[in-house]
């Protein structure tokens, strides 16, 4: 007969070292084991969907920076694609290649952050996260070189990108892609992927079955770790992804370890894509002439991109005015959270932290 104990409620968050922002998880705990999890979000709610109804289409682009502030380029890209789809705007080739390059660089930066933070949640004393930050910094330096900002880039525009790349960009990018990052990924292999303590901590933790993954609308590495080869870049290619050769890394087990290795492999695939895009980069304009206060025809459009967190969708309704009538964001971070309870109940607190880290939420995107 097991000892009967009163379950204790423990607040993990909103102020906690490993909740990746102001996210709150109320765990009911029996000893070390979690019997129930409630999640509380909304501490970072900025009502972006309402604010966007007051601003012109172009003025809304900075909002997308501040949603997933670790992957601002992807947010920019998704939003611009949806408006272009609504207004039927052609984007020049060069802009499309640049979008692919920056989208993939952003994926590398975001996955670096996710991997490092995940290992920190596993309990490493800052070393992997510092290594990952070092590589993320290299990517952010390139962003700074191009658009002047590191985090909230505001780089994509409706009909292209804001600036053409400077002359010193391509040599720096080639050095990064061919030399620095591959070396860094080899270090990750040794420090992180082959680390047996991480295997012990992350294997069989936070398991998602493929059925549940589809039913719960998971996307991104969460979906792929469950064994489903699904990637918007392959399934619904935007920009020039249909010309790129790359593979979708897919896990076996749906656990936290799979998600981590998938992220690392995706970074390598991103480098592959960037090399191809740089090789094929055409000349020409980086932007079509689109009026700043663009008035798309009345109608609606849903477009989606594969952001580092998952499927980032933008549903835009226009009534023919200068501002969107309705602007809805399908936030992958929020929807990926819906299986948090499934994944954590029955595990220990330490596992729950690892699970939360492996989902890779971004509270700016969860709350919007």
């Amino acid at each position, binding site marked *: 007969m097991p000892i009967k104990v009163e379950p204790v409620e423990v607040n993990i968050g909103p102020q906690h070292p490993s909740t990746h922002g102001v996210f709150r998880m109320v765990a009911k705990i029996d000893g070390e084991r979690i019997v129930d999890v409630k999640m509380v979000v909304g501490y970072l709610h900025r009502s972006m969907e309402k604010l966007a109804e007051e601003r012109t289409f172009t003025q809304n682009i900075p909002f997308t920076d501040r949603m997933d502030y670790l992957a601002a380029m992807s947010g920019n890209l998704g939003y611009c694609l949806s408006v272009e789809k609504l207004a039927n705007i052609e984007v020049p080739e060069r802009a499309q290649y640049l979008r692919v390059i920056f989208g993939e660089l952003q994926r590398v930066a975001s996955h670096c952050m996710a991997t490092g933070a995940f290992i920190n949640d596993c309990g490493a004393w800052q070393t992997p996260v510092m290594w990952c930050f070092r590589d993320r910094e290299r990517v952010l330096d390139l962003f700074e070189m191009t658009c002047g900002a590191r985090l909230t880039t505001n780089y994509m525009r409706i009909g292209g990108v804001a600036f053409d790349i400077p002359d010193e960009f391509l040599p720096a990018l080639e050095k990064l892609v061919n030399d620095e990052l591959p070396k860094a990924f080899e270090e990750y292999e040794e420090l992180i992927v082959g680390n047996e303590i991480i295997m012990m901590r992350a294997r069989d933790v936070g398991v998602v079955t493929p059925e549940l993954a589809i039913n719960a609308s998971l996307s991104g590495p969460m979906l792929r770790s469950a064994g489903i080869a699904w990637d918007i870049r392959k399934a619904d290619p935007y920009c020039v992804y249909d010309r790129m050769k790359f593979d979708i890394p897919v896990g076996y087990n749906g656990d936290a370890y799979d998600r981590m290795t998938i992220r690392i492999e995706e970074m390598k695939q991103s480098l592959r894509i960037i090399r191809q895009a740089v090789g094929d980069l055409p000349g020409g304009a980086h932007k079509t002439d689109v009026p700043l206060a663009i008035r798309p025809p009345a109608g609606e459009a849903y477009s989606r991109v594969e952001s580092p967190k998952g499927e980032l969708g933008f*549903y835009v309704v226009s009534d023919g005015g200068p501002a969107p009538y*309705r602007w*809805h964001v399908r936030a992958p971070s929020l929807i990926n959270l819906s299986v948090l309870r499934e994944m954590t109940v029955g595990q220990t607190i330490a596992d729950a932290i690892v699970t939360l880290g492996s989902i890779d939420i971004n509270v700016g995107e969860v709350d919007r």
Partner: protein
Amino acid sequence: MPHPRTMLLSGEEVADRIRRSLPEAVQSANDAYVVLEPERMYEAMRVIRDDEQLDGKFLTQLCSVDMVTRIDMVYHFASLAQNHLFEVKVPCDHEHPVVASITPLWSGAWLQEREVYDLMGVHFEGHPSLTRIFLWDSFPGHPLRKDFMSLPGGQKPGLSQFPKQVSGQTGQEFRPKNPGTGQ
């Protein structure tokens, strides 16, 4: 075999498949989307999920649009196995919007329906835990509605109508009473 690129199913196609099992569930259909009868929507949604051709096992997203006279619920469904995407709309009353919850069918709808309830005020029947998600419980009104009074004194939102000064109002009315407790 999946399509190499995502195919957008037209509303008529979807309506055809739904009509085979539920003749009166479809209100109308056009190129882009199909509009369902709110009363029969739960059965229709089950058809969408379990039908072999529609195969809408993946709820891509759901959201709501305030159309001033009514509120439209917008659902996007995808089939990952066949790689197609289609859109379904369910209209509901503007004053007392009530639709059936699809959380029993797609667990991914759970948080999104709570979000719609919070920001648009649509009531989902059959949702296991329909509470506010982003805003605190005592927040007055639902901000995504077009008639949401964001300002004291009945002022409509919008930069042009921003009031200079409202007498007798301090702007503190809508603050939570006890910050931190959510009350």
